């Protein structure tokens, strides 16, 4: 019974739009003159786009793994001051909205980069750093964004590997490198493969970073779906591309599942307690120092430059960028002061929190308490919107929900509904383990102590579920604040969200617009960071299944 409302929601706002896309994509075949789905798939442009999508995802994955492995090693094997704090800090990039990440890298790598200011001061005639629009900017942003995934997944397994296994190889005559290659690496391979698969999936469906940092030559499937819809207004072709995107993601997920089964190595995991040692000799101090320094440069520099740029106006520093956010018109040509977007975003986020918490908790309770096929089905169905790209979701909304029976195109509710779809899987994933962790013994103990069933539920389940609701609500809030891909399709011009406002500001020329975009990004970064920190507080040490 509890599962029914979320199920209905998913059917209406996920299954129905997806079905519409499928219908639209296939209808192109029937309509004379229109491009059929196969025509689109076999088109040279599509092949180029798909090729680039795979290529940039593969490169991003490779670079992220290579960049994060030393960090994973240092975190797994050494203890140093501030380690816990640093570990928490490394996850910040991953939870930041893509628009903020893109802004930060525009600030760092674009023509207005402080690096260029430095170079000019040193006498360089032209800006030295001009990577915006290049593949490099995209790759760097992806590495920044996905670093934590590899660090967490690989580092976690690494710290559970018994260091004596590698030492045994050393004593048996293996050099450092051979011992790593033949013993440690094979044992880490499953973790590396799963981290790489996740990075590949994320970067394959990356949208905001590529739209903002890329150029026409660097279009991925996501960007192409957006361009085809918003600029070329060719819905059947966009639908065909969306189908290709869904098929690719499904294939990737399938491969990922297979990979996980095949690569599992049975091993006794040792305790992680006694393997972390302070760096004692010169060599390990060097390794730890160099790794932490480069980690800091990669993860902190873009965000610091973002904040610095948000205060840069003209020649000096000031609050100009922030001040201009409250003025209508301005150079940005916006009808409303950009700051209104903050109010919009907060309202949408609040609505998302309510909807995603209520629906998500209903699903979580249904899944946690009942373990039949129904709950498994709901569980799987809930994950689908997560596997579907945000762009496909937004595209589905505009093709399916713009005519009777469901004409919601002009409704402001559309945005929180889309955000709820994206946020609900997170809410469910975060809360099901909390609810499952309630031990039946506790309920039995309460009953034996004289609590009625209703009272037992209130006293035992109630507190856990309300904490789960806080955690889920926090996730929904953070997701809603940062959502960009789907919102870009459905946001009304006069009711932009913060990411949309940043996107528009970045599309306008001029130093003031740029400063405003940076200011807005900084505000969004702070809002997101605060909500994520609060989630971590509320979640405590409860087990989660991420």
């Amino acid at each position, binding site marked *: 019974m509890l599962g029914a409302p979320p199920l209905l929601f998913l059917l209406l706002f996920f299954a129905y739009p997806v079905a519409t896309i499928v219908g639209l994509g296939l209808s192109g075949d029937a309509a004379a003159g229109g491009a059929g789905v196969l025509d689109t798939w076999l088109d040279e442009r599509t092949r180029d786009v798909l090729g680039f999508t795979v290529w940039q995802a593969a490169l991003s994955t490779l670079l992220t793994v290579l960049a994060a492995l030393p960090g994973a090693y240092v975190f797994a094997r050494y203890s140093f001051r501030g380690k816990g704090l640093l570990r928490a800090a490394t996850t910040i990039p991953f939870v930041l909205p893509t628009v903020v990440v893109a802004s930060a890298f525009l600030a760092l790598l674009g023509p207005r980069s402080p690096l260029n200011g430095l170079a000019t001061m040193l006498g360089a005639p032209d800006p030295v750093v001009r990577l915006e629009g290049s593949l490099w900017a995209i790759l760097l942003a992806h590495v920044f964004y996905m670093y934590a995934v590899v660090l967490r997944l690989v580092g976690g397994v690494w710290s559970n590997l018994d260091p004596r*296994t590698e*030492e*045994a190889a050393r004593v*048996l*005559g293996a050099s*450092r490198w*051979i011992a790593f290659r033949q013993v440690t690496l094979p044992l880490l391979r499953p973790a590396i493969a799963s981290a790489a698969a996740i990075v590949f999936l994320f970067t394959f469906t990356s949208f905001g970073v590529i739209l903002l940092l890329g150029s026409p030559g660097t279009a991925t499937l996501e960007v192409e779906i957006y361009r085809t819809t918003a600029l070329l207004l060719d819905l059947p072709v966009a639908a065909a591309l969306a189908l290709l995107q869904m098929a690719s993601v499904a294939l990737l997920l399938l491969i990922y599942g297979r990979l996980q089964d095949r690569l599992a190595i049975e*091993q006794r995991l040792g305790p992680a307690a006694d393997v972390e040692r*302070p760096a*004692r000799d010169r060599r390990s101090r060097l390794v730890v120092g160099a790794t932490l320094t480069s980690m800091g440069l990669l993860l902190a520099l873009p965000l610091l430059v973002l904040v610095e740029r948000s205060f840069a106006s003209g020649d000096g520093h000031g609050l100009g960028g922030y001040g201009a956010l409250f003025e209508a018109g301005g150079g940005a040509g916006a009808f409303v002061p950009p700051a209104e977007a903050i109010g919009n975003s907060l309202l949408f986020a609040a609505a998302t929190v309510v909807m995603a918490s209520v629906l998500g908790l209903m699903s979580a309770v249904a899944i946690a308490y009942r373990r039949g096929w129904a709950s498994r089905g709901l569980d799987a169905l809930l994950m689908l919107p997560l596997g579907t790209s945000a762009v496909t979701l937004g595209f589905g909304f505009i093709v399916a929900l713009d005519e009777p029976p469901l004409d919601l195109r002009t409704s402001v509710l559309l945005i929180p509904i889309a955000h709820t779809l994206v946020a609900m899987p997170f809410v469910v994933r975060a809360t099901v383990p909390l609810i499952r962790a309630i031990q039946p013994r506790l309920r039995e103990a309460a009953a034996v102590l004289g609590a009625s069933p209703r009272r037992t539920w209130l006293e035992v389940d109630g507190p856990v579920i309300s904490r789960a609701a806080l955690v889920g609500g926090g996730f929904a809030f953070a997701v809603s604040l940062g959502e960009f891909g789907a919102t870009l399709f459905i946001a009304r011009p006069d009711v932009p969200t913060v990411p949309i406002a940043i996107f528009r500001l970045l599309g306008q020329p001029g130093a003031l617009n740029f400063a405003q975009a940076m200011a807005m990004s900084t505000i969004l970064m702070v809002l997101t960071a605060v909500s994520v920190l609060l989630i971590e507080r509320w979640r405590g040490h409860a087990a989660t299944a991420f």
Partner: protein
Amino acid sequence: MVEGVSLRYGELQVLDAIDLTVADGELVTVLGPSGSGKSTLLRVIAGLAIPDRGSVHWDGHDLARIPVHERGFGLMFQDFALFPHRDVFENVAFGLRMQGRDSVRIAARVREVLELVGLRKMETRTVTRLSGGEQQRVALARAIAPSPRLLMLDEPLGSLDRDLRERLPLQLRDIVRAIGASAIYVTHDQEEALGIADRTIILREGRVVADGAPDRLWAQPPSEWVARFLGFRNVSPALIRDGRAATPWGSVPVDGSVPDGEYRVVLRTTAFVPDPAGTVRGLVTARLFRGDHVRLELAVEGAPALEVEARWDPLPAPGDRLRLRVEPGSVVVLPDSG
């Protein structure tokens, strides 16, 4: 081969000026309570840990600049550290492959050592599916396969159950003897250490506090701490004069060559014989039946509790009063009071 080795981890002095020499083909056991630095000593010799001071030599050559993998030593780890992603054959063959031997000779040698440790026909088994005793033998086979010039064993029986712990030490010694290497065997178990060694050294807080043949250490522990660590009870100060020691439990005979003075002495639990004219009198407070003997705890007036082992007929019961005599030659006079 180890000279003045010291090592600190932060505030903790793990090894403190350790000297240790191992002769060709000698089996030395290193005994000490946990945290005494035994394993760290092996790590230093293997090259896995770098000492702050002191040096490790082999045949007169300083090993400071020789990295772990070029030392040619064998080390069998506590909990074995087998490679979980490789089967039994591949585990044992690892060191041989590192030596660059050809596959035919590797296969022959692997079979040979597996035979030696009693694991024939187990080559293709997954190591994680083996029992503790089998894993232990794979680890031993892996350590001895490359014919190391020195074999080090770190608590090789540490994680095994009691039955194996009792049976395996002798087998282990025979295998070590069979390959003819020098060996250092680390354990916290007194019986194991004294039982199989040519020589035993005892570590306490990173220092060598005893070094000698097991029977010598047993006959004459060098200090009270060592005596207690080896399991001696009934340690007490005593005034010795004319070949007799005045202990809180009564007057007992000691070796006549000991000069008169104040000492600490040990009355071995097995030193007592029931005797109506004995000098030691006590009240039985507890009785522990041990099969071939009975251990009694006696309350002696004005003295600490006394532990006594003997064959009795009939068995004394708690509450009985006993008179005992101490056999000459069974009182240990300790050289110091530490």
